[in-house]
């Protein structure tokens, strides 16, 4: 009878076996500090071969970069502790800033802390610096090699199938989302279903990128077609964004009968539906039919007469979005037919990417760099000026990786992390003091390493438990200090146990840079910044006139535009960390609603920026400009007020003020159109103008929706001080 092992057991066995073999080889070769090879195995082991290889590559490259930086810092600052500290903190802050980016985060983390380890081990005795560098590099390489071989040979688990499944899921969800949006457009849809599909799409979008990186590393078929898969990923992301904006454009108003207004809508729907269906089919290996072309969506002129000016504007914006995603769906169709070798001539073009200044600073990442610099300086001053500081120079080597990891998330309480760290110390201490001294030979020690690693990996196998796993393994190997001439000292345990609270104390202090790390306070700060950026974008002449500005103005415009796009995402990440139990009158659903309304406002502002940059009001319709100036002044005043106090929004006031301005504007536009001779405003000019009007209307509605979403929240407890 055979017993089937679960994936969890297999993964734990693989890591434990790799750990035992790697430490064994290191001891056999007589290398010092086998714990470094153990760290490499512990931290690169992931669910699939590709993911592990990717992480292993980043760790190896990071080790090399960190080693070069360490040697340079030691070489440039001999016998000068302050120059050393300046150079060291500059390198670590640079790595921390880069860690906050979307690519190669792990590379930068490793490049930072390896520099710390080599500087602290080698810097004290500069003759050893090169040896320490080489030792660290070869121990890391050994751990990666052993784990890579084990994961490739024992129960290999490649990422290709996971990636293919993920692509199938994404295209299927996009198809369902398209159907849900179209049903809402026709007045018989379910907005809640669309919202849930939208959420699924966002989650699938983020996991697809990681799986593609992994699949490129371990699946040959994916690797040879990687450029096409990258194009597909980019097009799929653009299609999702386009559909979300389309839904935002008409989601709030179903008073328009689109079927009656647009005679070609039914045929358009059928063709797009079939196209998305065929994309799904091609990905599963079914041959497609030739691509069917959609007719241009022209509204029925007779039915158009019955619409108000703003309904026409809404229609123009909606049709523009539909044309955009029609074009994107065609590109995806072409790319997939090319990928699956169905030989259709249209290979599809990747979605255009926005070009802008090469470097746009990110305030959160800059603050992380400042926090980690403060952590390093406090740790260094403690070591230099306080006699008997636990760990000595090694304290800085421990503070650096922890400080870097936590610098980006000041809202995470250091107390929460101290618990797994001290548990790891306690567990490792018991084994070190009571079990290890009674072992003889590597057969017994190897068995202990295998069992301990297996237990930790099995117990903390879920991604949410990664912290427990990291601390458990790291503390064990740091305290055990396994070597060929094993010695035991209670001081190792005592020092490590004292170092951890001190590191977390320093991190807890620096988390207050620039101000309170309470997640609700950060949420409010981000809201203020969001409205400051809204204000800048609305008032910026460069953006308003669609000019291609250069230099400082271009960088400021790009900065604020990116802030608008990124801040709602950052706030969304904060919502689960806000403890609504401590804020009476606030619920998680209310906060999600605020984030959704800000996301919608961000999309509408983006539409306004695009409308401003692409189209200008036709000369004949410039008479409505004073109304537009009134509207802009009113919205800008709201943005300025919200940028100082985002909790002060008044939905009723905004609604009445903006509604009255829009009503006057509507009347003026209608009068102006009536007085113009037939044919004086071309259809194209009219459409452009309606798109501009639609963008203004969208921002007004989104602002009122934001004010509505903030009304039920009781903000008083948010402003009260509290011990965290």
């Amino acid at each position, binding site marked *: 009878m055979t017993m089937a092992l679960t994936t969890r057991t297999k993964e734990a066995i693989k890591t434990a076996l790799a750990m035992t073999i790697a430490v064994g080889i290191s001891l056999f070769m007589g290398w010092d500090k086998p714990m470094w090879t153990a760290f490499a195995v512990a931290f690169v082991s992931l669910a699939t071969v590709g993911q592990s290889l990717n992480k292993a590559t980043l760790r190896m490259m990071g080790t090399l970069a960190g080693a070069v930086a360490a040697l340079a810092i030691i070489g440039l600052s001999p016998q000068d502790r302050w120059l050393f500290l300046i150079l060291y903190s500059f390198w670590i802050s640079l790595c921390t800033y880069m860690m906050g980016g979307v690519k190669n985060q792990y590379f930068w983390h490793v490049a930072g802390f390896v520099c710390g380890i080599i500087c602290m081990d080698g810097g004290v005795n500069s003759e050893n610096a090169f040896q320490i560098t080489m030792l660290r590099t070869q121990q890391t390489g050994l751990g990666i090699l052993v784990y890579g071989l084990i994961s490739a040979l024992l129960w290999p688990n490649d990422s290709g199938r996971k990636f293919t499944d993920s692509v199938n899921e994404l295209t299927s969800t996009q198809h369902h989302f398209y159907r849900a949006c179209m049903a809402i457009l026709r007045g018989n849809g379910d907005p809640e279903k669309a919202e849930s599909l939208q959420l699924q799409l966002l989650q699938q979008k983020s996991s697809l990128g990681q799986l593609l990186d992994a699949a490129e590393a371990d699946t040959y078929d994916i690797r040879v077609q990687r450029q096409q898969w990258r194009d597909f990923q980019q097009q799929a992301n653009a299609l999702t964004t386009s559909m979300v904006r389309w839904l935002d454009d008409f989601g709030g108003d179903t008073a328009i009968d689109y079927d009656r207004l647009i005679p070609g809508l039914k045929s358009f729907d059928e063709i797009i539906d079939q196209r998305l269906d065929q994309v799904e089919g091609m990905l599963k290996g079914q041959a497609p039919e030739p691509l069917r072309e959609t007719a241009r969506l022209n509204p029925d002129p007779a039915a158009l007469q019955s619409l108000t000016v703003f309904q026409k504007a809404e229609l123009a914006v909606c049709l523009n979005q539909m044309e955009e995603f029609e074009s994107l769906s065609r590109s995806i169709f072409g790319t997939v037919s090319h990928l699956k070798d169905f030989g259709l001539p249209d290979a599809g073009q990747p979605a255009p990417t926005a070009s802008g200044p090469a470097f746009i600073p990110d305030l959160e990442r800059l603050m992380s760099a400042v926090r980690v610099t403060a952590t390093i300086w406090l740790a260094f001053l403690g070591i230099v000026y306080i006699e008997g500081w636990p760990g000595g120079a090694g304290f800085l080597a421990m503070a650096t990786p922890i400080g870097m990891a936590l610098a980006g998330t000041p809202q995470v309480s250091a107390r929460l992390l101290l618990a797994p760290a001290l548990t790891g110390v306690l567990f490792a201490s018991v084994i070190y003091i009571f079990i290890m001294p009674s072992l003889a030979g590597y057969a017994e020690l190897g068995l202990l390493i295998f069992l301990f690693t297996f237990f930790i990996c099995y117990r903390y196998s879920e991604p949410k438990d990664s912290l427990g796993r990291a601390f458990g393994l790291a503390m064990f190997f740091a305290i055990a200090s396994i070597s060929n001439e094993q010695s035991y000292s209670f001081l190792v345990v005592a020092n490590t146990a004292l170092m951890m609270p001190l590191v977390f104390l320093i991190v807890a202090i620096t988390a207050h840079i620039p101000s309170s790390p309470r997640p609700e306070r950060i949420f409010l700060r981000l809201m203020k910044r969001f409205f400051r950026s809204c204000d800048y974008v609305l008032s910026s002449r460069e953006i308003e006139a669609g000019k291609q500005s250069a230099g400082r103005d271009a960088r400021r415009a790009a900065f604020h535009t990116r802030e608008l796009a990124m801040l709602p995402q950052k706030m969304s990440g904060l919502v689960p960390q806000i403890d609504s139990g401590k804020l009476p009158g606030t619920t998680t659903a209310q906060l999600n609603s605020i984030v959704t309304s800000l996301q919608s406002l961000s999309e509408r502002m983006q539409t306004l920026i695009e409308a401003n940059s692409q189209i200008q009001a036709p000369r004949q319709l410039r008479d409505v400009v004073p109304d537009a100036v009134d509207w802009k002044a009113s919205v800008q005043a709201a943005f300025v007020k919200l940028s100082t106090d985002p909790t002060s929004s008044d939905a009723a006031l905004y609604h009445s003020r903006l509604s009255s301005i829009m009503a006057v504007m509507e009347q003026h536009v209608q009068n102006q159109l009536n007085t113009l001779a037939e044919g004086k405003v071309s259809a194209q000019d009219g459409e452009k103008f309606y798109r501009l009007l639609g963008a203004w209307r969208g921002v007004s509605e989104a602002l009122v929706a934001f004010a509505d979403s903030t009304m039920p929240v009781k903000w008083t407890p948010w402003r009260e001080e509290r*011990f965290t």
Partner: protein
Amino acid sequence: MMPTPHEFVLGGVYMPPMLVAAFFGLLATVGSVKLINRFRLANYFSHPAVVFLALVVIYTIIIGTFFIGA
């Protein structure tokens, strides 16, 4: 009469009196701030984090001087 400063022995490990006083000072501070939060008195402080640190120092000195002898 003030207690005489002396080390604490735990399983043969000698610990400085200041470490013990700081440990109890930290425990007392955690208890105090929980009570302060409970009765919403933290609202009267402009920087609770600084108050927390100050309380740790005050408690450590009081416990060290009058109870432990640090």
